[in-house]
């Protein structure tokens, strides 16, 4: 697979070995390949230490892989860029700026005309349900609202790909469900390619059109699924989908898969 001719996001046989400053090394990723068409939503799931965040950091361009390469629309990724937006778990908003200024950060850095940017921000504020909060400092918002700002800030920049690193991980269960609905809605409306890292099996199943389960030591793709739930989620109620037999069956299958991996890791300590 050579990503150079592809449209979309291609992870081409990426391996990552971290050399530790004190000697020794950690084999974080081994021969990971992915091919994402434009507009696909991929969830990445796996036990801690399986290298999913490393993978995301490589796609974002924060880390250079030891072997292999990442291509977006035929261009090799060599560093962070506005074409690949990122939504972190929490604490990546600029607390010295209000909601509006956070959202308009990308366009302002690019020197876009203020009028156009203002209209875009107004539009995004409404989409994420923060219409009245534009002038609030971000630190006065709840965790869920802050993540809405983070989503809007990413969208304001109109990236081709949105990378999400546990974006809902710090939220309470109810807020999390609501935000999952918002992510689906945004995906549908914007048609962006999304890579979502999560360790919630339910979230990965519900949001991922495609789902990869990664295994640790070294981090690699263990199993891949194509799922109908994200598509269903656009029309049906999330509770119905999550309570359906098909959903539950998949959930249990993946949960026991991950449990086994965790057991393997912890095994040495238990016995």
């Amino acid at each position: 697979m050579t990503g150079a001719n592809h449209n979309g996001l291609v992870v081409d046989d990426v391996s990552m070995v971290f050399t530790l400053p004190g000697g020794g090394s950690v084999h974080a990723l081994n021969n990971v390949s992915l091919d994402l068409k434009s507009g696909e939503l991929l969830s990445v799931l796996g036990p801690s230490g399986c290298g999913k965040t490393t993978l995301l950091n490589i796609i974002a361009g924060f880390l250079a892989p030891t072997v292999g390469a990442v291509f977006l629309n035929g261009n090799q990724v060599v560093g962070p860029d506005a074409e690949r937006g990122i939504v972190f778990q929490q604490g990546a908003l600029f607390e010295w700026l209000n909601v509006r200024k956070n959202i308009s950060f990308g366009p302002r850095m690019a020197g876009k005309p203020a009028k156009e940017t203002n209209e875009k921000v107004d539009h995004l504020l409404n989409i994420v349900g923060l219409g009245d909060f534009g002038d609030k400092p971000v630190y006065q918002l709840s965790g869920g609202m802050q993540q809405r700002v983070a989503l809007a800030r990413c969208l304001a920049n109109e990236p081709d790909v949105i990378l999400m690193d546990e974006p809902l991980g710090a939220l309470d269960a109810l807020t999390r469900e609501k935000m999952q609905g918002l992510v689906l809605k945004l995906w549908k409306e914007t048609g962006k390619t999304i890579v979502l890292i999560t360790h919630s099996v339910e979230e990965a199943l519900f949001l991922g059109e495609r789902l990869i389960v990664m295994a640790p030591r070294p981090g690699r793709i263990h199993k891949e699924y194509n799922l109908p739930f994200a598509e269903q989620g656009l029309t049906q109620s999330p509770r119905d989908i999550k309570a359906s037999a098909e959903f539950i069956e998949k959930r249990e299958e993946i949960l026991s898969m991950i449990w086994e991996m965790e057991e393997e890791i912890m095994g040495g300590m238990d016995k």
Partner: protein
Amino acid sequence: MTDQSNDPNIKLVAAPQETPSALMMWLGMADNSFTRQKTVKFGDPSAVNSGRLWSFVTIILLLLLWWVSTSFGWVKPIYWPSFEAVGSRMTKLLDQGFRNTELWEHVFISVYRVLSGVFFGALVGIPLGFAMGLSSTARGLFDPIVEFMRPIPPLALIPLIILWLGIDETAKITLLFLAALFIMIIAARSGVSGVKISKVHAAYSLGASKFQVLKNVILPNALPEIFTGIRTAMGVCWGTVVAAELVAAEKGVGSMIMIAKNFLQTDTVVIGIIIIGIIGYAIEMIMRMLESWLIPWRGKG
């Protein structure tokens, strides 16, 4: 009476507690309504109230001790002046000044020296601290100087400064500049180092250039630390200026009390000490107000 007692939907099983008067709470004689509901108070820092009444007791006792000891002649006026002596000296100082210089001018010159020292210290120290936080070369170049100078009290530099620059205004401001400089370097450096990498990553992923990251992320992120540095530098410089004026100066609060001592004017010495305390306190309060006004996001990242 609480609001609940008027709400027909809430049936109180016990009679509501009598609310103590606002005065009692202000004096610290009664806990606020929230603390009163706590059963664990010992060990809970928020259950300790201002205890203001006792502060008044302390102040009154001290003043009483002062008055009694001086008017009954327990201490000689040369060691500690009487109320009346301090009062009349204060009137005289306000009226005629001290050694041909108005009292406010003595205060003003000391404050002016502190502000100049902190200003130049920040002017040089902040860019240096930034460079040290951002570049290995700058860090390597300046680290030995900063680490060596950091533990040296500014007062230990006075002899050298006098040798080099004499005792004029430049010498004093240089000393205060040095006192502020290393505080500011260290504050700016730790402000830069304290940036969360996710914020930097987010900015780059939003298309920011290196310079834009510096200006729009690293700088504002470091402001709280820088401000703490300025506040600390103000405090240290205030202490240093008084000490420097004790050694050699014509004007300034420090020199005022030193000269007054030579003439055994204990009352002027006491007035000077009180002024030094008040100005130091005022500087701290003003800086705290500025801080909450300028950097409202402090500690909320």
